[in-house]
């Protein structure tokens, strides 16, 4: 953890720089009584010096750390015997993994050859060198920055404006992280997907009716590329999402209506938070509930009725997912229902409508766009939900509409393909990214449409 130490030293240096800058500013004007002669408050001169000391050094350290491992890796590879360098990329990846494990004293998958031992030593040496070099370089930059900042301090120097500009830029940089996250998501899934589509034609992926990514244990195994048709996965995803919606929409909507239109303020005050507990329960808990309680319950009851229910039925996963989504629908619907102006209710009650007639014929139609938006968001959530289906839905890609059978979903396949030992660059691993791309695009469209609809609705009543 020497980098932690380095960061601590840097923080200490920055504190020192703050003090030095502050002192110097005061000294230049002749003590704290003459503060008025300074353009800015002394603390700003301190901050300015500290920024010069810390910011460049931290940037260099950040770059160093993020590039270190790939540079070291390349150097290690170039030091390997030719026979090993010429291995296919996937094998090479495994070898490098082994070398790293060896260097860290972990268990290694294969036999340890002398070449590997040498490489591991090489690796350790390089890392140590890099570590030491980063220490020296970063500290030098920090000290140079400190000196530079210190020299800038003078009574006419507009330290406050400079500091504020730097802070402002920091704020701007922080606000772009959201953009970079989206960009990162798009690029990371896109690049891997493009590599996938080089191996598997995009038409086969989009319209294929069969999904069976073969478990290729060795690279040279025959038939290591299976069928990659995503239709059964999406059908399964939609089936489970549909069941979830059939549970969540009526219950969520009706409880929102009841809480907003019928319940007394007392009942509402404790029922609403209790219902919202459902939203705070982690999805893995729902998954456990689905797999251990609901699925066996449905299977056993189905057996009593003479139905053949799979123990990983779509019904169990969908049902539990629906329960998870109830509070989502109910709180969004509650928002839009209470946003319908009271004058609409008055108008309807004023001509003698009952409450339910008012709700059904006036409030719900008026709130419809908002409710639809909420439901779309909920669908997007159901499609992207992972843990419940990983734990309660099946693995085999059946193309069926029977909720009693087992189906698999996009997210289940992503998890299955990426958890455990991976072979890089095999279509199997890359397929997960292609599925991720599809998932991202579909949920993105749903979200954009839903957020747009909801916002338009809000504007209409504000």
């Amino acid at each position, binding site marked *: 953890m020497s980098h932690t130490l380095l960061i601590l030293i840097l923080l200490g240096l920055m504190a020192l720089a703050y003090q030095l800058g502050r002192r110097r500013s005061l000294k230049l004007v002749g003590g704290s009584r003459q503060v008025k002669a300074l353009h800015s408050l002394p603390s700003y001169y301190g901050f300015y010096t500290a920024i010069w000391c810390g910011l460049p050094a931290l940037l260099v350290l950040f770059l160093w750390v993020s590039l270190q491992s790939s540079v070291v890796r390349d150097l290690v590879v170039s030091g390997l015997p030719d026979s090993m360098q010429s291995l296919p990329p996937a094998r090479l990846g495994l070898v490098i993994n082994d070398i790293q494990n060896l260097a860290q004293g972990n268990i290694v998958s294969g036999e340890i050859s002398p070449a590997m031992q040498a490489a591991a030593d090489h690796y350790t040496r390089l890392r140590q060198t890099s570590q030491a070099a980063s220490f020296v370089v970063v500290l030098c930059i920090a000290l140079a920055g400190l000196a530079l900042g210190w020299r800038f301090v003078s009574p006419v120097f507009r330290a406050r404006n400079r500091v504020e500009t730097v802070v402002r830029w920091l704020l701007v940089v922080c606000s772009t992280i959201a953009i970079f996250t989206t960009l990162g998501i798009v690029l990371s899934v896109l690049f891997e997907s493009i590599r996938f589509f080089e191996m598997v034609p995009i038409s086969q992926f989009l319209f294929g009716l069969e999904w069976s990514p073969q478990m290729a244990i060795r690279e040279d195994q025959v038939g290591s590329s299976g069928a990659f048709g995503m239709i059964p996965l999406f059908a399964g995803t939609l089936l489970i999402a549909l069941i979830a919606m059939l549970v969540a929409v009526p219950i969520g909507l009706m409880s929102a209506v009841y809480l907003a239109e019928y319940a007394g303020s007392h009942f509402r005050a404790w029922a609403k938070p209790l219902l919202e507990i459902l939203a705070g329960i982690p999805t893995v808990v729902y998954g456990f509930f689905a797999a251990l309680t609901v699925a066996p319950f449905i299977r056993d009851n189905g057996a009593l009725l003479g139905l053949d229910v799979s123990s990983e039925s779509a019904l169990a996963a969908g049902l539990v997912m629906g329960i998870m989504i109830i509070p989502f629908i109910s709180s969004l619907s509650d928002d839009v229902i209470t946003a319908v102006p009271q004058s*609409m209710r008055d108008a*309807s*009650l*004023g001509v*003698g*409508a009952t409450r339910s007639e008012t709700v059904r*014929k006036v409030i719900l139609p008026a709130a419809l766009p908002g409710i639809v938006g909420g439901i779309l968001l909920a669908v997007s959530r159901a499609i992207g939900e992972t843990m419940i289906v990983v734990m309660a839905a099946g693995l085999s890609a059946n193309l069926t509409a029977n909720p009693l059978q087992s189906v698999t979903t996009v997210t289940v396949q992503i998890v299955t393909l990426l958890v455990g030992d991976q072979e890089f660059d095999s279509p199997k691993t890359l397929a997960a990214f292609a599925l991720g791309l599809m998932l991202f695009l579909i949920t993105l469209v749903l979200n954009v449409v839903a957020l747009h609809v909801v916002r338009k609705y809000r504007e209409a009543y504000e």
Partner: protein
Amino acid sequence: MLNVTPNSVGSVAPPAGVVGVGFSPTADDSRVISGTVGDIKAADPRMTARNVDVYYGDKQAIKDVSLDIGKNEVIAMIGPSGCGKSTFLRCLNRMNDTIDGCRVEGRIMLDDQDIYDRKMDVVPLRAQVGMVFQKPNPFPKSIYDNVAYGPRIHGLTDNKQELDEIVEQSLIKAGLWDEVKDRLDSSGTGLSGGQQQRLCIARTIAVAPEVILMDEPCSALDPIATARVEELIDELREQYTIAIVTHSMQQAARVSQRTAYFHLGELVEVGKTDDIFTNPSHRLTEDYITGRFG
């Protein structure tokens, strides 16, 4: 023009004890309200309220108000903001039921029924006593559906042609037909403010109520639209009993036959509109109509 019935002229005799207070213009305590001045009775009462108290939680909003609303007359309720006139109006078709913690005591009769009786049902009550609100509140539906809303929920007709006729007649009566007959399918919220308010009146008329309550129906309208609605109110008087709450004394003078002045939750004075405005009995009424406060 004034539709004064012999009865109302005859029963000018105010309750004993009230007269003295009402007619002592110099005394300082003339501003004390102790009972209503003037005749609370109407010639041919459609609704009668007796000793009505209204509470919002612990706060009393209406104190001991008794008032008749006569058939085929327009009664205006005036008074400064917060005087309880709107609250009283909303009691007349139990719209106050929708407010949490609102409690009504006393007796309000519609013909022979006590509307606060346990057996009384708000649905038929509101079908008989319709209401037009301060802000035009058409449903976000088509003009046709707005007017047809009441007849549909009450099942007044199961026949499309009859429903068309009801809509047409209501719009004609509300004076809106000529303006909207070519666009019955366009949205009610797309109309101008004055048209929207007339649409709301048409929506109320469509269920054929006996009494129409209007809660400051013109306060959100411009002067031209206001004039149009006032004209309409005068026309509707022939067939309906109308109680109107208004902020504008001129409006009360223009549209009503009787006027009731409310102050701090009490009914101070009630009488023929001409009398109230030309010769108010109570000092408070006088101060209000001469613009000293309010």
